[in-house]
């Protein structure tokens, strides 16, 4: 998957705020109304609505059609794209480190067998 740069930038920008992350964390356990979302925060509903608009623009949250409640729900796809991007990034650098893990295991085994042959250990 290679999401466009603009989409990823929007995702990361939206995630850069702690309130918006808390909203997403709440929505990960199921949809909620603005009132329900605002409850745990020391914030007015309009302030929460502003955060929701940012999340909606980034495609991270969608609103239900029910005119009264307009429940918010989490849209997983942009999050997954962001995670995939980071994972790809980490695996790019991480591959050499995984080879280093293997090498270090081999070095430790060599040292142990050398120690077995020469009791008394390190010189």
């Amino acid at each position, binding site marked *: 998957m290679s999401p466009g740069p603009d989409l990823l930038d929007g995702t990361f920008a939206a995630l850069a705020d702690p309130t918006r992350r808390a909203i997403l964390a709440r929505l990960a356990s199921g949809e909620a109304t603005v009132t329900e979302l605002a409850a745990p925060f020391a914030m007015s509903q309009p302030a929460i609505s502003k955060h929701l608009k940012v999340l909606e623009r980034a495609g991270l949250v969608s609103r239900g059609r029910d005119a009264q409640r307009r429940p918010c729900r989490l849209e997983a796809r942009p999050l997954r794209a962001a995670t995939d991007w980071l994972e790809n990034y*980490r695996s790019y*650098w991480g*591959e*050499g480190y995984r080879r280093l893990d293997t090498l*270090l295991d081999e070095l430790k085994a060599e040292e142990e067998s050398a120690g077995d042959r020469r009791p008394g250990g390190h010189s």
Partner: protein
Amino acid sequence: MNNTGTLMVTTPTDREIVLTRVFDAPRRMVFDALTKPELLMRWFGARGWNLVVCEVDLRVGGTWRFVSRGPDGTDLGHGGVYRVILPPDRLVYTELFDDQSYPGESLISHEFVEQDGRTTLTSTLLYASREGRDIVLSYPMKRGVAEGYDRLTEMLAEIQPR
């Protein structure tokens, strides 16, 4: 600390990339793996890259020269000068790529911290300019997201729906 194997990538300033990784080995061993050519040849390189030449003159002011072979068979030379050599605590050297894909010399500092037989390796890559740093950041995906989002990976894992 039981996060062996997890690589952390952060960008604390606009000219730096910091890589942090825990290894299940004493730090003198990790230090050797970063400074002895016969060991470097066995692991060094990002995804798809391997060392084909590895020369190390391990003294302050001494030079190092690597040739890395990429996934498509292209060879890329890079090298630099050792600035600080304090085994097993600290290693600092400069790096310059032959192809100058980003401008200027970068400074690479490795810190080795050991606890209970495990080593935390923190590598700070300081680039000559923000542009240079961003070019390096863009290698994995050929694009340049340059903002620093510390701990974003963990945070994403937390809110990722199952």
